[in-house]
């Protein structure tokens, strides 16, 4: 048996200007986790249960909550939740059905179980689950839209099942106000090719905690994209179980945090079968006082997954003072027989040389900045593989950028960590 190796790199970047009072905003950059004597918790050993009563009270020190503003989430973590069904918009598409099904439906629970209390609270509270079933080998687009959830604290559950060999692009659109904790399951059949885009374009006051669980079939391809632009506190935690040989997961993310927004994602890829492949690529931009982002990326390569090929990265672009980006890649490897595994994480300011180059061609500073940010984020947009969605997101990113406060040439602040083993 090979010795498991684990690497953990924590990177916290505060961009408080030196003259700002320290008390005004949060802690200074710090490091924790793997190196400080506390062993990295093995992700596979994490407790999971569908019953909220199995979870103790949340203190904010737990690994899943330590970066999250739990004080503002008590109602979703502990409170009573409205679990009734809600209005869903879905234009009819051949070979796709959307329906409400009872809690007893056999599909529920087949992709994963909650690992924290808000997720379990949602699981214990929903009345019916929204079931989306995809069949047919033709490429198609499915839109499932929610825009009137309202301010009541809610629970929701969704199960998306893709039959073997099926293909689809599924867009989950979220808009309007919300106060929601939910679980979404994806059961991807053998050789299916499914792309899911979860769009968080919530209203400014929305609070949204989501856990996504996917189980990927043999030789299936699963592309999962989290785009978070709107909302007050939005946390989307995708977890993908590569449980069958040849499964391929591409997890992409794009987020843009404005002043006061907390946008978080905890990504987990579990390589649990031979010749599985994963690529994780999340990119974020932060602008405005107390714009806050968190990215945690856990990749586990089990003994059962020889020939794994895995790479994860997170990059953040800091546009103004007063923001904070946390980026924590974790890699656990239990087998020596892998094709490749690596991670990278970097958070930095604008590259002044890029700005200079554009300005030296006559492009005014503000427009040059917009070009650079758009260029930084567009990589993810282009990987989604839908022209229509690409167009939509380009416009939305433009809108975010126009909110941009004037930024004067800030002192460079950049750091990066890279790690790889193969």
């Amino acid at each position: 048996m090979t010795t498991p190796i684990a690497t953990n790199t924590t990177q916290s970047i505060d961009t408080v200007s030196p003259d700002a009072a320290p008390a005004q905003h949060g802690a200074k950059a710090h490091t924790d986790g793997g190196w400080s004597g506390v062993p990295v918790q093995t992700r596979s050993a994490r407790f999971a249960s569908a019953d909220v009563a199995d979870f103790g009270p949340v203190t904010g020190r737990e690994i899943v909550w330590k970066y999250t503003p739990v004080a503002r989430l008590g109602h979703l973590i502990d409170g009573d939740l409205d679990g009734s069904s809600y209005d869903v918009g879905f234009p009819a598409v051949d070979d796709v059905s959307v329906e409400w099904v009872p809690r007893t439906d056999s599909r529920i629970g087949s992709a994963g179980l909650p690992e924290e209390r808000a997720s379990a609270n949602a699981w214990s509270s929903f009345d019916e689950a929204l079931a989306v079933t995809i069949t047919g080998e033709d490429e198609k687009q499915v839109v499932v839209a929610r825009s009137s959830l309202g301010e009541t604290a809610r629970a929701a559950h969704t199960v998306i099942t893709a039959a073997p060999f099926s293909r689809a692009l599924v867009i989950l659109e979220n808009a309007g106000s919300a106060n929601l904790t939910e679980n979404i399951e994806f059961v991807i059949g053998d050789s299916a090719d499914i792309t899911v885009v979860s769009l968080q374009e919530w209203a400014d006051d929305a609070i949204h905690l989501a856990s996504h669980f996917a189980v990927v079939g043999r030789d299936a391809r699963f592309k999962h994209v989290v785009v978070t632009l709107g909302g007050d506190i939005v946390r989307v935690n995708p977890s993908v179980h590569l449980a069958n040989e040849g499964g391929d997961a591409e997890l992409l993310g794009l987020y843009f945090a404005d002043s006061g927004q907390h946008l978080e994602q905890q990504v987990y890829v579990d390589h649990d079968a031979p010749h599985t492949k994963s690529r994780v690529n999340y990119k974020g931009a932060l602008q405005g006082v107390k714009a806050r982002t968190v990215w945690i990326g856990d990749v586990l390569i089990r003994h059962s997954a020889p020939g794994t090929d895995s790479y994860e990265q997170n990059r953040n672009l800091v546009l103004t003072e007063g923001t904070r980006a946390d980026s924590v890649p974790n890699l656990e490897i239990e087998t020596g027989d892998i094709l490749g595994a690596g991670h990278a994480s970097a958070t930095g300011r604008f590259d002044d040389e890029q700005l200079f180059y554009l300005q030296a061609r006559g492009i005014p500073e503000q427009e040059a900045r917009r070009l650079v940010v758009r260029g930084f984020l567009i990589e993810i947009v282009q990987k989604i593989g839908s022209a229509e969605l690409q167009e939509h997101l380009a416009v939305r990113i433009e809108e975010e950028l126009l909110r941009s406060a004037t930024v004067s040439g800030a002192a460079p602040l950049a750091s990066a960590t890279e790690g790889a083993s193969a």
Partner: protein
Amino acid sequence: MSVLEISDLHVSVETDQGTKQILRGVDLTINEGEIHAIMGPNGSGKSTLAYTIAGHPKYHVEGGSVKLDGEEVLTMSVDERARAGLFLAMQYPVEIPGVTVSNFLRTAKTALDGEAPAIRGWIKDVRESMTRLRMDPTFAERNVNEGFSGGEKKRNEILQLELLKPKFAVLDETDSGLDVDALKIVSEGVNRAKENTGLGLLLITHYTRILRYIRPDFVHVFVAGRVAEQGGHELADRLEDEGYDRFLAGAPLS
């Protein structure tokens, strides 16, 4: 007639060891349609001069002036200088991820002209310039300088020179790192731009090689942050034979 006038220019940079004086009183006047070669050893301050004219924030002007048709350039922002008609072809062009060459060119052209170029004519101009510079048409849809070879980056600079039509261009070691074929292509591009627009050129180079293809009207030898000697093309020939040694003796070590 346009004129670019550099007088008594002093420039420093901040380094870990403190402020470092680089330019020590540069005087240089370039008229429209003239080609001035600036030749000098490594570290003599040639790029510093180029960047200072373009307005790079790293370089601090301690004294002197740079005037374009009588207007002080040094108080202008970087983009204002470009819009006033200055262009810098960089020694090390910068990569801009996610911004395509065609988008970049169109955005720059629009910023310089104050209005978007007529689409059909513009696309034709871009395509023709690229063809003449032997750039594959696919470059238009690639991100600016990303994954370009050294030679491709330099061609991309000259493409911009041709399309953006400045009054004065500073070419900072555009020749370095080019094989002879690429050197010819790039030189032809520069000569064409000059013929078409009558721009004035400041051609910075370490070697005399490019001067076989772009014939300078004046040659300035740059040593330790100032012009040590000037003359006509024959000075370049002399440098080719003798090297810079004659000038380096007694020069303050930087």
